[in-house]
């Protein structure tokens, strides 16, 4: 059961920000409700006002600002999955969207809600770190953009001020030839582990010019692994299997897991190594123009 609240339906972003500023901590922005309403049912959060942001013009659009892919905050996972622009510019993102939670969550859950909620057991923020994501926030005080890595402070915690509204996330898929993969693992509804990996290719696809790896769910917040990325730079695509062990060890060493229902810290660190190797194998296959066919128990390769 939900406790009573007042539902506000502003028509403009300015009006929404004004409401958030006036109501302060008593209010929560509300879009798909797939996370917020669950916590409200449990009484873990008790906002007396919900500010529905679904009617704000423009926030439900997927666009291209010339260099970056711009995903409006109220775009649903389903819309990402089906977007022709996303499939063209960033196919791994469409594939990841297809595997978020379940179809009911994907139909109503939004990209902005997912990021603003900062549930550590989430796919999007991890993937977006490999796309150099920036989030755009507006408030009565103006507009600011900051890297996603700075936006997410920790579990269920962001630097969003109470009067700020997340309006979009801006992603920078590599413009040239690239190969990417996202692998997630877990037996529960929310993933236990997510590994996002992207390779920028040069020499006609024979060599890795640059690499990005992010690990999610096992840390308080998702994080890139600069050491592992450095290890991949300059590597021949044909040699990726040979370096996969070293890359996996670096990823595991960077992890900061805790014991919880998803497993012990040691187990999670080991799984980071295992699934980093598998993610690299999947991305390496794509670098060679082959769709990976390997399937792993309780895991999704996107």
């Amino acid at each position, binding site marked *: 059961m*939900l406790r*009573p609240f*007042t*539902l*506000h339906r502003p028509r403009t972003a300015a009006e929404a920000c004004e409401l958030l500023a006036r109501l302060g901590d008593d209010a929560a922005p509300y879009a798909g409700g797939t996370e917020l309403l*669950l916590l409200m*049912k449990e009484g873990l959060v008790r906002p007396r006002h*919900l500010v529905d942001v679904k009617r704000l013009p423009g926030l439900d659009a997927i666009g291209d600002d010339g260099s970056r892919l711009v995903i409006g905050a109220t775009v649903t996972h389903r819309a990402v999955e089906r977007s022709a622009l996303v499939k063209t510019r960033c196919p791994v993102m469409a594939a990841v969207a297809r595997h978020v939670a379940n179809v009911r969550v994907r139909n*109503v859950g939004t990209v902005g809600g997912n990021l603003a909620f900062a549930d550590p057991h989430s796919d999007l923020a991890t993937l977006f770190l490999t796309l150099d994501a920036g989030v755009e926030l507006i408030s009565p005080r103006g507009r600011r953009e900051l890297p996603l890595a700075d936006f997410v402070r920790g579990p269920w915690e962001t630097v969003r001020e109470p009067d700020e509204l997340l309006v979009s996330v801006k992603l920078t898929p590599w413009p040239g030839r690239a190969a990417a993969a996202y692998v997630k693992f877990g037996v529960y509804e929310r993933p236990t582990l997510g590994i996002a990996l992207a390779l920028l290719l040069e020499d006609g696809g024979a060599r890795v010019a640059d690499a990005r790896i992010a690990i999610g769910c096992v840390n308080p917040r998702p994080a890139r692994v600069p050491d592992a990325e450095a290890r991949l730079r300059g590597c021949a695509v044909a040699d990726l299997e040979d370096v996969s062990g070293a890359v996996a060890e670096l990823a595991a060493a960077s992890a900061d897991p805790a014991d919880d229902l998803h497993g012990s810290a040691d187990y999670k660190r080991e799984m980071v190594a295992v699934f980093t190797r598998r993610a690299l194998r999947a991305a390496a296959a794509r670098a060679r123009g082959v769709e990976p066919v390997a399937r792993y128990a309780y895991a999704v390769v996107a």
Partner: protein
Amino acid sequence: MSGGGPVAAERIRLVVNGEPHELAVAPHALLLDVLRDQLDLKGAKRSCDTQVCGACTVLVDGLAVSACTYLAVEADGRAVLTVEGLAEGDRLHPIQQAFVDHGAVQCGFCTAGMLLTAKALLDEEPAPSREDVLHHLRGNLCRCTGYRKIVEAILAAARGRR
């Protein structure tokens, strides 16, 4: 509902199983409770209450949603389909008939959600692969674990439609 002001209780107009309704609902009323308690439609079940199990699945404008975590006011101006709206009179919907023919029902608690999830899939993808069906059903749990027959029934219903 129009305008940008606060909302106390609200009149919503919606179509449920083809029948128009005008209802007064509180902003915090969940669609599942409105369907079950105000409209006496008991097909959608409350089970996990956290959007994991699919027992409360209904279609809103053709999209599968968890009625347990969907505000009733969101259904204003929309068409809701529950399991009670699938059959035409005494004639079962082809997906329902396929469930009967394949013995895809055990205790029955998940069945309404399974049927509606299957309908949403087949309306969107009339010729799904087994992989498509498994992917789409991932969020619908059957604790009798009767999945195999459910998948077979849905694939048979798809073949029957073509």
